[in-house]
């Protein structure tokens, strides 16, 4: 038996070695592309890298205090929350019926419905957004028709407003809500609904007492998948909004790329991450645990 065989046998028998071997490549990848940059951002935020890109060991909170003393910060944070919150709510309100319908009412070719729903998302995010810009513009197809039919007398202005930002966000994130909800509702045992009806629950109460509570894990997954990326969104407000619709992501981008002040930009990023993380933890603790327990 050669050395290779001995090694292979050892690995096969030893579960922890197996796990370690499986996890090493992704951990290396994450270390290089995520942990290291994140550490650098952290070092910048604590003023531990000077303008000559040298690491110094004199941490300071000066950049944090600059961010916190900036009176506009809370407004930007709130606006980010507001956009992401409205987005997640609309995605849920629009996505739940879609997932419910495909899962409960469609008998044949469910996959076709799901694929039809996913197809638009095979197109690049930027192209989709540019296409939406064409539809929201004052000289858009809709405005032209409505004007020529004399239904409106001046074009509807949507571009560069909150409505535009939210519309494009919902459009781009809806699929992230529908897929986990659909996966969850598909697993739901439909005889539970029949059982509820034999016990005297009509359609509304069956939904509220059985379907909805049992779809909490799906709602939660969809919520996190939509909320987290959309609260940090900066491309959509940049393209279809204006400076008055800027979110935290835009400000961070401006500080890094415009003002080139990596220290304050890093401090703002760290604060924002801490803020979102605490929100998510509160959310999972509150709404989540019941949902996750099933």
């Amino acid at each position, binding site marked *: 038996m050669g050395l290779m065989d001995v090694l292979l046998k050892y690995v096969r028998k030893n579960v922890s070695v197996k796990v370690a071997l499986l996890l090493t490549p992704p951990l290396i990848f994450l270390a290089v592309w995520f942990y290291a940059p994140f550490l650098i951002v952290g070092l910048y935020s604590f003023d531990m890298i000077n303008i000559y890109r040298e690491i110094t060991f004199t941490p300071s909170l000066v950049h944090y205090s600059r961010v916190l003393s900036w009176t506009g910060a809370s407004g930007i944070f709130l606006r980010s929350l507001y956009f992401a919150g409205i987005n997640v709510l609309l995605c849920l309100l629009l996505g739940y019926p879609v997932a419910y319908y495909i899962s409960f009412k469609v008998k044949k070719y469910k996959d076709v419905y799901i694929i039809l729903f996913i197809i638009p998302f095979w197109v690049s995010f930027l192209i989709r957004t540019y296409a939406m810009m064409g539809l929201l513009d004052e000289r858009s197809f809709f405005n032209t028709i409505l004007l020529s039919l004399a239904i409106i007398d001046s074009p509807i202005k949507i571009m560069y407003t909150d409505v535009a930002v939210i519309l494009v966000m919902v459009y781009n994130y809806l699929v992230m809500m529908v897929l986990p909800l659909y996966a969850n509702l598909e697993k739901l045992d439909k005889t539970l609904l029949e059982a509820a*009806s034999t016990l005297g629950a009509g359609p509304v109460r*069956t939904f509220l007492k059985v379907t909805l509570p049992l779809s909490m894990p799906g709602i939660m997954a969809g919520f996190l998948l939509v909320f987290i990326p959309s609260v940090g969104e900066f491309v959509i407000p940049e393209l279809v909004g204006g400076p008055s619709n800027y979110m935290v992501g835009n400000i961070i981008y401006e500080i890094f790329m415009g003002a080139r002040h990596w220290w304050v930009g890093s401090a703002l990023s760290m604060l924002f991450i801490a803020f979102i993380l605490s929100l998510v933890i509160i959310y999972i603790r509150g709404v989540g645990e019941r949902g996750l327990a099933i």
Partner: protein
Amino acid sequence: MSEVYSVELENVVKRFGSVVAVDHVNLKIRENEFFSLLGPSGCGKTTTLRIIAGLEEPDEGIVKLYGKDVTDIPTYKRNIGMVFQHLALFPHMNVFENIAFGLKMRKLPREEIKREVKRILEIVKLEGLENRRINQLSGGQQQRVALARALVINPEVLLLDEPLGALDLKIRQHMMVELKNIQKRVKTTFIYVTHDQTEAMTMSDRIAIMKDGRIQQVGAPLEVYYKPSNTFVASFIGEAVNLIEGEIKENGIVDTSLGVIYCSEQSAKGKVAVMIRPENVEIDEKIDGVDNLFKGIVQAAIFKGSYIEYRVDIQGITFIVHKHGEENLGKIYPPGATVEVGWKKNSSLIIPVQS
């Protein structure tokens, strides 16, 4: 004064595509009866039950609960209880909440709900498990929760869809006795769907035997066993049966390929079958005092515990004989032995051939 029926089905038909799942079913189920729908899988028994529950809409016919036409009334407005094959307990609720669900839907006051749940938990013997989650219960306990949840609302009819199917034999046997006791205690009509004749025979007051969406026979367990209405029922009920086809020669005498067989009844005409239950047949070297006597050769003798099953070849037809009794167990006729097989004429019944 006409009898009170808890459930009546009149000419009920249900089709799934080109398949007729329920084919002109007529049933009158008495009040507080333990009634079983028995048949092989795909015979339409579950569909019939779901039509009574309102979970399936019949294409034709009328469903009545206590004389009231409920054909167009949705499930949640019918006062029925149902125990599902896979129980369908709510996984996000504990035992108490599961059982209380129907009472909450009826908007009973909290105190009354507590009292009712306590009462039913005593009946199904689950006291003290109110706060358990469903996945912390054994299969038998889950069974009882499902039963309690369906019973606590005092339904006019309790529908049970093969509820014991998932349990192992010992618990199943125990639950059969228990179910029957509970039914006597709560005084409710039970309609029980099963493919297991032992379950149906053990618990039922009456059994409806179904095949291909049609009711073949409705009767008490003894009746369907000893007086099957056709060859399908005869072979479906009981462990084994001898069926010999032939033609009526004269009253009570059937001409078969074995020769003439003397029988007890004579109502039918033309092509019929003669049914002889294996336990009513004698087997010995020499038999006296029987009406029908044949010589045969033992093909196989299988020891089954309380009896011996013989397969005897009589002129090319395999005849099954069950020999009971301790005194016989020591003496087994080996394969190849020539024996006499005989029975009295009132042990052979003329029945119509199932078309």
